């Protein structure tokens, strides 16, 4: 099966610092990736996505970087705030099987005030 994993299960950062959450994927055919944020007791919330024809995509305070050579993507959160505390998941999808998304186990981000 597909494998999307995260390097760090828990990340603690100081409020105001930048956060970087990493994700590795195993299927070189994956061409679409999503980052989700999941707060306790809630459903995952779409944050940002990127297609494989891009290396970088920016949103509001978030940036996703994709390195297809080493099959790695990261989520950067600028000026991390207490409200950013949550579990973050990456998901991958392949164009030939667009009905299915594969998810990593998640990284918990703790923001210390």
């Amino acid at each position, binding site marked *: 099966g597909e494998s999307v994993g995260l390097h760090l299960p828990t990340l603690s950062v100081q409020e105001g610092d930048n956060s970087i959450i990493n994700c590795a994927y195993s299927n070189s055919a994956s061409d679409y990736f999503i980052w989700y944020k999941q707060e306790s007791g809630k459903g995952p919330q779409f944050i940002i996505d990127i297609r494989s024809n891009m290396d970088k995509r920016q949103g509001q305070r978030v940036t996703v970087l994709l390195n297809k050579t080493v099959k790695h993507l990261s989520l950067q959160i600028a000026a991390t705030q207490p409200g950013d505390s949550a579990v973050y*998941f990456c998901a991958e999808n392949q164009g030939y099987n667009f*009905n299915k998304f594969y998810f990593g*186990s998640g990284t918990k981000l703790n923001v210390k005030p």
Partner: protein
Amino acid sequence: SQTIHQWPATLVQPVGSPLSLECTVEGTSNPNLYWYRQAAGRGLQLLFYSVGIGQISSEVPQNLSASRPQDRQFILSSKKLLLSDSGFYLCAWIGGTSGGRETQYFGPGTRLLVL
């Protein structure tokens, strides 16, 4: 705009009892619909998905079943719950193209505790 609903939000059921969880989507037509289960502190496990009314694909053999009686309604059922069925159940749909690809969005989830 599109909205996805799940109910109930929380459910406590005894072992051996039946289950019915409902998911509905508003603001779209003919969406792909999904049921996932999430164990505490774990990732998402795809259980079922549906590309249309009456069309169900099962990903994991188990004592759960799914049905899609209407275009925007997806139901997760069980005849007899097991302790291992406890978890957080998430409904999702695919739509809302982003950069040419359809993105998956999730509902608020149902927390099921089987005792």
